[in-house]
């Protein structure tokens, strides 16, 4: 009867309450023990983490939201906390890149008291971070401390410097590489040590590699690749120096002829009939041996190697060029670390100490070898551990060589509507692949749409 139901509900609430109660105890005890433990950086006692900058233990507590679901980040934070007694960093996984940025955005909209002090943002979110005013440029503290940035790879330094100001600290950087199946190369009579270097060669190889049920090459329709191709031939996507000297006012990738050149190169590949569209699953298709080659992020080298295992031999090569005569290099993808602008300079200063630790050669070497992102510190490559590592894992070196051989000004575009613009470009790219639009039509329409987005954005976000 009523009593039974009340009893059930009461029991449910009590059970919940009891579990919650012991949860509190768990949290406290684990937090207490983690103070001493090197790897316990991700756990502290409950509480909102707000309040005055310096806490009871005399250290400035700093929170760090990241999107890297690996145990390595808390470990690095733990090492940092061991290494000094001024600053205590708490590294908190906050979902994938998109989740991190959305949660950060809402925390800032709510006044910022619940926002972290450091947030990791993917390359595509940089423009949002700059334009929203939610971040304090790291340049502020670089200047304040006269910090020497010369160890950072020059291209990466330039990539994250806009209009003379470095906004965020690079941390995890990658670029695009060509993955190829060495066993299939051998079977087709191709030299597995001489992978294609241009789109023309890519097409020829693809034709030879194509067999029944296996594509020659799988090309993902991904505008970040388009941006890489554009940088590679030294052409800009938007005006004002790719949006880096001043805010972009229009798209120029059709007007400057670069976009057409790139689209024609892709179209040439489609016309060979040896390509196949696996969309975002291109890498899976490669690992499942449904395509002999594909282009994907260099940060996945170790994942691919582990997943393929003994199934076949993986080759990794530099990304083929669309124009055999020009090679400006391949720019940067990945993420960087931003200081949240919460009006707390003390915390920002403390957080900056951690950012410096994150780009030290040892940290970067460890990160590079465990993931597939390359080290952004030049000194990291001189470490014995890294040299030894390359002898056993030569695949990791390809992305590094690619970045070393790139021009130091091979930087991509920065503009606020880039995420939406990317999907517009992708739509027309797909139309070209399906042969419903010619490369000329596709690139012209894409430029017009992107320009409209930029104009609309500039109208609602007047410069101060």
């Amino acid at each position, binding site marked *: *009867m*009523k009593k*039974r*139901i009340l*009893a*059930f*509900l009461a029991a*449910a*609430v009590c*059970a*919940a*309450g009891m*579990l*919650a109660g*012991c*949860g509190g105890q*768990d*949290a406290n005890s*684990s*937090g207490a023990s983690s103070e001493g433990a090197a*790897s316990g950086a*991700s*756990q*502290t006692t*409950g*509480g*909102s983490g707000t309040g005055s900058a310096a806490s009871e233990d005399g250290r400035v507590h700093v*929170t760090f939201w990241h999107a*890297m*679901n*690996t*145990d390595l980040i*808390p470990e690095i934070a733990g090492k940092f906390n061991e290494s000094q007694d001024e600053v205590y960093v708490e590294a*908190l996984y*906050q*979902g*994938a890149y998109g*989740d991190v940025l*959305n*949660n950060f955005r*809402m*925390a800032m*909209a*709510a*006044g910022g008291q*619940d926002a*972290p002090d450091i947030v990791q943002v993917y390359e595509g979110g940089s423009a949002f971070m700059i334009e929203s005013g939610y971040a304090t440029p790291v340049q502020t503290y670089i200047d304040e401390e006269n910090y020497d940035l010369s160890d950072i790879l020059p291209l990466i330094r330039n990539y994250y410097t806009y209009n003379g100001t470095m906004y965020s600290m690079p941390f995890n950087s990658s670029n695009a590489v060509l993955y190829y199946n060495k066993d299939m190369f051998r079977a087709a009579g191709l030299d597995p040590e001489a992978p294609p270097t241009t789109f023309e060669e890519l097409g020829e190889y693809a034709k030879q590699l194509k067999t029944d049920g296996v594509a020659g090459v799988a090309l993902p329709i991904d505008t970040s690749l388009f941006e890489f191709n554009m940088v590679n031939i030294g052409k800009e996507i938007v005006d004002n120096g790719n949006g880096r000297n001043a805010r972009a006012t229009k798209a120029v990738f059709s007007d400057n002829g670069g976009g057409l050149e790139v689209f024609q190169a892709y179209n040439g590949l489609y016309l060979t009939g040896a390509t196949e569209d696996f969309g975002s699953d291109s*890498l899976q298709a490669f*690992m499942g*041996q449904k395509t002999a080659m594909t282009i994907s*992020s260099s*940060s*996945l080298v170790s*994942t691919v190697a*582990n*997943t*393929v*295992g*003994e*199934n076949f031999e993986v080759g990794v090569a530099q990304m083929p060029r669309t124009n055999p005569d020009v090679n400006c290099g391949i720019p940067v993808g990945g993420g960087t670390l931003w200081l949240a602008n919460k009006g707390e300079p003390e915390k920002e200063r403390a957080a900056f100490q951690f950012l410096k630790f994150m780009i030290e050669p040892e940290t970067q070497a460890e990160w590079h070898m465990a993931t597939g992102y390359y080290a952004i510190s030049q000194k990291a490559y001189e470490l014995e551990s890294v040299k030894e590592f390359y002898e056993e894992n030569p695949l990791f070196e390809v992305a590094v060589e690619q970045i070393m051989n790139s021009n130091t000004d091979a930087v991509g575009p920065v503009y606020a509507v880039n995420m939406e613009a990317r999907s517009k470009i992708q739509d027309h790219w797909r139309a070209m692949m399906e042969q419903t639009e010619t490369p000329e039509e596709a690139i012209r329409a894409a430029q017009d749409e992107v320009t409209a987005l930029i104009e609309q954005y500039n109208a609602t976000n007047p410069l101060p």
Partner: protein
Amino acid sequence: MKPSVAGRFRRCGGVRMLIVIAAALFYLFPLARIFSMSFMSAPELYAAEPSILPRQFTVENYVSIFEGNIPIFTFLKNTVVMALLITAVQLVVSSITAYALTELDLPFKNAVFVLILGGMMIPFESTMLSNYLFVAGHGLRNSYLGLILPFLLSPAGVFLMRQQFRSIPREMVEAADIDGCGPLRLFARIMIPMSSNALASLGILSMVTAWNQYVWPLLVTDKNEMRTVQVGISMLQGLEFSDYTLVMAGIVLVLLPCVLIFIVGFRFFVAGLTEGAVKG
């Protein structure tokens, strides 16, 4: 001889059983696939000849989850607490609201009902920021209250209970009225016990929906001590690429307690309610 065997087979529902078994095999294949993949290694998943059952059975995925930095038991406990609280409140609120909308003397019943149902039509993108501002503004981040507040009212629950109360034979209600049974007693002694099946279904739905929350818990918690299992599963996914075998092992670990709770827990719940109906 033969026809009689076939006849007996048909009479005791043999044909129906065969259909049920075939349907189960087809429908539950993905479930079996989760289990099977969780015992595979990543290369096996991508081998040229894919396997339905693991060729080289391995518990490596489970081992690495337990050895990893994800406190899976804390996450499970948090999720159980959160789901139980949401379910309990939703059952109470749905029942009383539906009672007000059917038996009680409420003006503009239909308009109020459509207004409540309208709560289901507002896209979550609209409410997310405002709910976050409310929860963060009251300092409820990283707390159970913050996790459950936006989900305490279930318009679908109100709808279901309204349907249920309307299905209760009028004679029973009128008889109770003549007996001088007050509205509160009518609710507790007749309406609720007569609705045990609907309440149980609603309870399962609330529980499971709460269990599977991802976006909101991720938004209002940033401490492992307060996180839930779906956030834990997302931690097993790769940055740009997932090791599916590992993720499947995580799904199994999260799925088992959930199934146990709703099978065992709700059997007791329904039994209790039905017993009440017989006595009342």
